[in-house]
C-alpha cells in the first residue's frame, strides 16, 4: 500500500517558492492585475453559457447545444 502515491499528500507548500505561472479563466480584469505585478499569466476568454441566463441555458441544453 505504501507504493501507491497519496494524491492528497502532493506537496503544495512550494507553490509560492518560485514565481507562479497563472492560467486565468473568465474576467479579464484579474489577468490585468497579475500582469501589472509581472506575473506570467494566460487569459482564457470564457463566460457562462448564454451569459448566465438560466432560462436560455435550460433551452440550450434541451436543444443540444
Amino acid at each position: 500500500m505504501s507504493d501507491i502515491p497519496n494524491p492528497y499528500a502532493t506537496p503544495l507548500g512550494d507553490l509560492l517558492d518560485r514565481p507562479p505561472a497563472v492560467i486565468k479563466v473568465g474576467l479579464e480584469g484579474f489577468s490585468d492585475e497579475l500582469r501589472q505585478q509581472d506575473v506570467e499569466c494566460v487569459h482564457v476568454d470564457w463566460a457562462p453559457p448564454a451569459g448566465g441566463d438560466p432560462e436560455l441555458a435550460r433551452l440550450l441544453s434541451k436543444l443540444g447545444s
Partner: protein
Amino acid sequence: MERIETANTEALRRMLAADPVLVDVVPAADAIPSLKERMILHAGPPIEWDRMCGPMRGAVTGIAVFEGWAPDLETAAEMAADGAFEFHPNHHFDAVGPMTGMTTLSQPLMVVENQAFGNRAYCAVNEGLGKVMRFGGNDAEVLDRLRWIRDVLGPAMGKALRSTDGVELKSLVARGLTMGDEMHQRNVACSGLTLRALAAAMAATAEDTRALSTALAFMAGNDQFFLNIAMAMGKAIMDPVRDIDASSVVTAMCRNGTDFGIRVSGTGDTWFTAPVEMPEGLYFPGFTEADANPDMGDSTIVETIGLGGFAMGASPAVAGFVGAGAASDAANFTRTMGEITLGENPEWTIPALDYLGVPTAIDIRLVVETGLVPTINTGIAHREPGVGQVGAGVVRAPMACFTAALRALAEKVGVA
C-alpha cells in the same frame, strides 16, 4: 438533439452545394410579376412609413418621383403618409437591396440563378458611392443616374449576359477572396473580374459605341459594383436553406434602419426583430457620428453566407477602412465568427489564414451560448433624407433577435 443536428447538416450541405450564376438583367416587372404600381419593396424586415428612418423616407419619395407616381418629393411624402404606397420587404419577393433597398417596377434587376437548386434571386444595379438612392439620396442627379441605369446600363448588361452562359460566381468570389475582397465593404477585385467577364460580350452586343463606353466606364469606376451581385448571390444561396424542419441555421439577416431582423430555417419565414444598432466606424471629411443613421440594408445577406465581416481575414485593407483596428486584427474577426458557425467553405478560402475556409452557416444556438453575435461590415448613411453616404464601419447584430429565435425554435421542436 439529433433532429437538429441532422437538419443542420442538410442546411450546411445545401449552402456548400449552391452554384450561383449571374445570368441576366431584366426589368423588375418581368423578374417579379407580382410587383404593381405604387408598390415599393424595401430593405430589412417589414416596416411602414411612420416608423421609417430619414434616409429610407428620402429613398421612398425619390423612387416615387422616379416611377412617375408623384410630381415632386414633397407630394411623394404626403402621399406616403396618406398610405398611397404599399410597402413590403425585398426578402418576401426573392429579392434583396442594399441600404434603403428600393425595388420598384421599372428598375432593372440583376438575376442570379442557383443552378444546383433552380431558384433565382434579384438585386438592383449598384449606383456607385456618395449621394445615391440607397443611402437616401433623391435629387435630380440621383434620379438621372437611375434613369440611365434603367435605359442604358441595365439593358446592355442583360443583352450581353443572354449572349453568354452567364458569369459563374462561386469561382469568381474564390478569386476575389485571394485578391483582398470580403465582398461587403471591399469589392475592388470582384468588380474588376466582373467587368473582365462581361466587357467582351457587352462590346459584341452593343449597337451604340458611345453608350457602351459610358457603361464600361461606369462599371470600371465603381469599386462597389460587385456588392449587389454578391447580395443576389447570397439570396440565391440561402433561399433553398429555408424551411428545413428543426434547423437552427440563420437564413437571412437584414435591417431597415429602424429594426434588425433575422430568419431561421426551422422557424420558416418568421422575422425575429430588435432595434438596430449604430455602426462604429470612420467618417468622410466633414461628417461625424452625430450625422449617422442606424444600420440599414439587406447586404447582411453576404455575412449570412460567410463573407463580409466573416471574411475580414481575407481583407486586411477593409479593417482599416471600416475602423475595425489594425490589419492584423482582421484575422480575429474571421476566427471569432468561426465560433458561431457550423463549418467552413472549402471553396472560399483565405490564403493569409493558411487557406481557412470562410465561416459558414450561423447557428443561433452557438450565438446565444457564446454571446458572440455576427459582425457586419457596413456603409453609414446620413440620418437626414437626401444627403447620402457619410462613412463606413462595423456593426453587431442585436442578441435579442437570436434569443427570440431560440425560444421560438424550442417551441417548434417541443422542448420549450
